[in-house]
């Protein structure tokens, strides 16, 4: 089969060059690109804020910024990274691009709602940016009452509205994915033939639908309480700040599964392709995705062990938190088993996959420590927690995002990036990440509290290590921006299937045409048919 000259034929990128055709597009692939631009911008902002934090923490005294400013910095870092980068990242970019193609459809179920979701996201982001530049907010990304609802003097309402609005973007994306996966699969594409990327996005979308509305109403109540002076969480009126925590964490815990499940979906694709093997235990991995989504709704109280929640509830939430770790562990075992006796290729996406598996395991295991009541009393609100979630969010979610971005870059852009630079960046990122966050486990265990702009001088060495690591980590993020952008202009043209991977997306040209398929494909095979002699040719 000859390689079609992808830069000559009409594809979704060159079909129309006008700005209007981009801003009014209903093509899921273009919307994915719009999201890629927006979330990259927010990632840069969130990263700059992190840089400021690590700079401030080089010295034990608060000599770079004042306490109030420091509070605003970590609050904005958390809000930006969680709501405007991590939660949309993989679903809005890779999910939007790939879900229709992977199920063999011409577009998502509701293309105009897809475009609306991007505008809603941008509007919410605009609100939050305005809030940031006109004074910022200092409540922590968790907005705990009564500080946020009564006593804070910062732009709580504006930020809360920004997050509220952006939440609808998440809801609309999840709605689109769930309905698309149910109703628009190509003939022959039964549930157990779907790529695990789709299963992961299905599970993620369930969480987006069922969880996001709760934080929406909760944040609205905080804004109302603050703006209109009515009491909802105000203890003076018999209100209960812990009720806020219940409602907040009912979403915000499942939210962390929104952030990690898509990354796990990417992992399945990468590990299968770069081991040239079917995923070991496909059914287990698929059901684990849904199990994580469901169980993830039953554990939120583990954020409230020391908040005056009843001990009885604490014990139940602790036990359920142990249980939710099991499906994640099953996935790690299955990816590892996939690699056993596989034909491993160490290209950039696979390096990110290895990084993910190791770092996610560490992050996940430290989550078990935190779920243990007695240990949590000791390390709650210390850097141990900070290290735990950064291992999962950065070592896990972001590695998956970058791995997926590299893997599907040729498909999305029609260009090949430089493998040499890709590997250098992946290794740099891995080393920088560990240097940044491993010392924080030690710091937390030794008792350094989080969200403090000063610390005892004996912790300085570890903090300096962490800040040094942050510099390397920053370099690791900068490199892909440079060589991926370079590849857009000077990269070699990619054929339809440079990796020799299975999956419907690799049977379209790179970049794909606007409506994905000339004829609706008919699927007759299981996913990851790498051992079939006809599949997996590098083209």
């Amino acid at each position, binding site marked *: 089969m000859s390689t079609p000259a992808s830069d000559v034929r009409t594809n979704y990128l060159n079909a129309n060059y006008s700005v209007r055709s981009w801003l009014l597009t209903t093509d899921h692939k273009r919307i994915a690109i719009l999201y890629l631009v927006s979330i990259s911008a927010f990632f840069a902002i969130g990263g700059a804020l992190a840089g400021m934090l690590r700079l401030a923490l080089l010295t034990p005294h608060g000599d770079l910024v004042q306490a109030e400013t420091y509070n605003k910095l970590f609050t904005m870092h958390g809000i930006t990274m969680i709501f405007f980068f991590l939660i949309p990242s993989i679903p809005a970019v890779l999910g939007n691009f790939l879900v229709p193609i992977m199920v063999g459809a011409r577009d998502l179920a509701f293309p105009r709602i897809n475009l609306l979701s991007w505008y809603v996201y941008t509007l919410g982001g605009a609100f939050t940016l305005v809030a940031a530049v006109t004074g910022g907010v200092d409540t922590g990304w968790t907005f705990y009452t009564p500080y946020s609802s009564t006593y804070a003097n910062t732009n709580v309402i504006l930020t809360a509205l920004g997050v509220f609005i952006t939440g609808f973007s998440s*809801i609309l994306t999840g709605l689109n994915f769930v*309905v698309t996966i149910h*109703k628009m699969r190509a003939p022959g594409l039964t549930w157990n033939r779907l790529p695990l990327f789709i299963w992961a996005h299905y599970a993620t979308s369930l969480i987006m639908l069922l969880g*996001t509305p709760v934080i929406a*109403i909760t944040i609205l*109540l905080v804004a109302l309480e603050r703006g209109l002076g009515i009491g909802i969480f105000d203890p003076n009126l018999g209100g209960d700040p812990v009720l806020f925590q219940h409602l907040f964490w009912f979403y915000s815990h499942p939210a962390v599964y929104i952030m990690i499940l898509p990354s796990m979906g990417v992992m399945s694709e990468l590990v299968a392709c770069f081991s040239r093997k079917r995923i070991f235990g496909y059914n287990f991995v698929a059901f684990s995705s849904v199990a994580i989504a469901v169980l993830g709704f039953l554990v939120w109280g583990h954020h409230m062990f020391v908040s005056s929640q009843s001990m009885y509830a604490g014990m139940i939430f602790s036990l359920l938190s142990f249980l939710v770790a099991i499906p994640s562990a099953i996935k790690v075992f299955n990816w590892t088993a996939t690699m056993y006796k596989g034909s491993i290729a160490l290209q950039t996406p696979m390096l990110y996959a290895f990084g993910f598996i190791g770092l996610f395991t560490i992050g996940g295991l430290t989550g078990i420590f935190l779920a243990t009541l007695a240990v949590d009393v000791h390390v709650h609100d210390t850097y141990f927690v900070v290290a735990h979630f950064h291992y999962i969010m950065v070592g896990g979610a972001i590695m998956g995002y970058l791995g997926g971005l590299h893997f599907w870059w040729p498909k999305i852009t029609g260009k090949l990036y430089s493998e040499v630079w890709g590997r250098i960046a992946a290794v740099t990122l891995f080393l920088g990440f560990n240097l940044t966050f491993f010392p924080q486990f030690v710091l937390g265990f030794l008792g350094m509290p989080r969200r403090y702009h000063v610390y005892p001088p004996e912790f300085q060495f570890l903090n300096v290590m962490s800040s040094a690591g942050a510099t390397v980590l920053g370099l690791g993020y900068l490199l892909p921006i440079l060589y991926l952008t370079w590849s857009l202009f000077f990269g070699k043209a990619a054929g339809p299937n440079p990796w020799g991977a299975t999956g419907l997306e690799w049977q379209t040209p790179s970049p794909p045409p606007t409506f994905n398929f000339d004829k609706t494909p008919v699927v007759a095979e299981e996913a990851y048919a790498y051992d079939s002699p006809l599949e997996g040719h590098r083209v």
Partner: protein
Amino acid sequence: MSDHIPQVAHQFEDATQQYETATLGMWAFLITEIMFFGGLFAGFFVYILAHAQAFAEGSRHLDLTLGTINTVVLLGSSLTMALAVRSAQEGNRNGQMLFLVLTILLGLAFLGIKGVEYAHKFEQHLVPGPQFRLEGPHAQSAQLFFSFYFAMTGVHALHMVIGVGLLAWLLVNAWRGRYTPAYFTPVEVCGLYWHFVDVVWIFLFPTLYLVARHA
């Protein structure tokens, strides 16, 4: 003017897939609404445990007559909405328009009565905030009840306003003859939304108005 060929969007194979996908999509949206209102109900249930007497007192200050009338009005609007969908399904253009108009009128009546209730609350100094005044030992916690009353009925009323807007859009299209037995998906889907807003009220009414009427 009248369109006998069902309009099928490009991403769908046929009209059936489009219809099933649209209704499933609306149901997916409705479950997000269940969770949205659910947060408010969860908060209310937590507080009524701790402040049973205050909440009972607050509830007794609500106008049960207007609340009951509103319940009947909204249930009636659900009937007319269901009949509007039925008319569209049968290709009855006059029936569609009649029942849509009735639904809109009943919806506006509900909102009007709600407005009257709100005005009364304002006059009685029962709006939470610095103007709030209530006699008795439970004033502080009763204010909490009214915060929830206004938040829950306010969010519900907002959904009604959106619903009336959707119905007006349907009415214009029905007048243009766009809905036929082969394509009445928007009417069905907006109907689902309207009925859901009614279901929320079915739970709001006893929760807020019937806490302890016998005392």
